[in-house]
């Protein structure tokens, strides 16, 4: 058994929270630059230039690129040969989030109850997705998710007869309806299959992929490209001011599903597409 101390887990999560919120991934930045250079709308080019400049400034000054530093979503892949020492995994992750949001001067956006809405003061609790995997590694991914784009996300249970066309139409209509609200250019995370809650998880998980990483199945890879092209003919454009670049990317994740169901989830991600990973 490999021993990993909770102290190291908290420390890693703390750093990931700060890095994710201040350093936009090179993959996202490169795609933003490409889209800026080929955007045909003048106001669209201006918006994309400012988004790129903002990301550069955030990294250089170690400031969060967006004031909404989000719900801390933490994906954990725990190798079954790992033994956690000195405490428990969940507490260690929550402690790391609390420290990261405090020390990184990140905004605390969590309220303890949906109705009394009292701020918890340290952005906990994080939403934790735990998966056990073979091996002796612990992989931690922190993906802060802002409220604006999260609010424009959805799950629908389509009848299987809706088929591929039904799924395409639903995704496209949803992005169109979301319009300027989720801070386009967006990344469209699509979950297809599974059941009600698993489908939403798939959509969220797809957002962890790097821009340009295609689905391993050529059928879904082609569908991703097709949907991206379709979304970018909507004309919504950067910030919804009109333009070519409505989405930077479309990612699809799928899972087996019930004979009666065709669940589809769309998790929209704003251009501040933040995720950072560490392996212990």
């Amino acid at each position, binding site marked *: 058994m490999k021993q990993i101390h909770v102290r190291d887990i908290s420390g890693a999560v703390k750093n990931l929270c700060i890095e994710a919120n201040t350093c936009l991934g090179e993959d996202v930045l490169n795609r933003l630059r490409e889209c800026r250079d080929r955007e*045909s709308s003048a*106001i669209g080019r201006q918006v994309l230039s*400012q988004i790129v400049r903002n990301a550069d*400034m955030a990294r250089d000054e170690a400031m*969060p690129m967006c*004031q909404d530093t989000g719900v801390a979503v933490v994906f954990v892949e725990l190798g079954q040969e790992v033994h956690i020492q000195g405490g428990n995994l969940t507490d260690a992750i929550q402690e790391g989030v609390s420290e990261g949001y405090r020390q990184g*001067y990140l905004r605390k956006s969590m309220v303890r109850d949906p109705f009394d809405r009292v701020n918890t003061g340290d952005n906990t609790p994080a939403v934790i997705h735990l998966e056990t995997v073979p091996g002796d590694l612990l992989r931690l991914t922190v993906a802060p998710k802002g409220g*604006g784009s999260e609010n424009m996300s959805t799950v629908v249970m389509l009848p299987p007869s809706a088929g591929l066309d039904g799924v395409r139409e639903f995704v496209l209509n949803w992005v169109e309806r979301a319009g300027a609200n989720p*801070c386009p250019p967006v990344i469209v995370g699509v979950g297809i299959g599974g059941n009600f809650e698993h489908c939403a998880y798939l959509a969220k998980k797809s957002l962890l992929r790097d821009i340009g990483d295609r689905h391993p199945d050529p059928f879904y890879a082609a569908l991703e490209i097709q949907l991206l092209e379709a979304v970018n003919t909507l*004309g919504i454009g950067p910030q919804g001011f009109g333009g070519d670049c409505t989405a930077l990317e479309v990612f699809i994740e799928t899972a087996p599903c019930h004979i009666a169901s065709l669940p589809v989830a769309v998790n929209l991600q704003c251009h501040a597409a933040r995720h950072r990973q560490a392996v212990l």
Partner: protein
Amino acid sequence: MKKAVQHIITPPLTEESCMRLMAGDSVLIRGSIYTARDAAHQRMVQCLERGEPLPVSLDGQIIYYAGPSPAKPGHIVGSIGPTTAGRMDAYAPALIEAGLKGMIGKGSRSGTVTDAMRKHHAVYLGAIGGAAVLLAKCILEVQIEAYEDLGPEAVRRLVVHDFPAVVINDCHGNDLYRSGRKNHLRSIRHA
């Protein structure tokens, strides 16, 4: 399509100054604006319903829908981009009636809000969502004016210089989210 114009505006805004702003125009704001979002709006509207004075006079003023991240040592404010304006739609008409002339946010507004804007000559401006460091650089002073207990949601007075925004909804009924998209699609079809 009319060519977009750049305006420099300084609150308090008058009906006349609002009427000159057209959807698609860009503005640079100089002077004082106030931040408020969900919780502060709820309290201000409750104030008006009870017939009490607002904690700050909104006459001719601009509200920026924003809740900043905490300021780092040596900074006056953290990152501060706009939040989704639609969540304030339930409260905005009452504040417009109380004299509010401008709102800065991102995302579309309801018909009730745009109706109130037309009636009282107010404007809705869009700042770039997510450009929160860039926007923080336009802020010269920050002062908490009300509801300090709300933390990032407190009402702050910001003194800004050349704070950039785009007119989304003007007081003549135009909407950049509709016209911008329509014009873009027309232009690429004719390209």
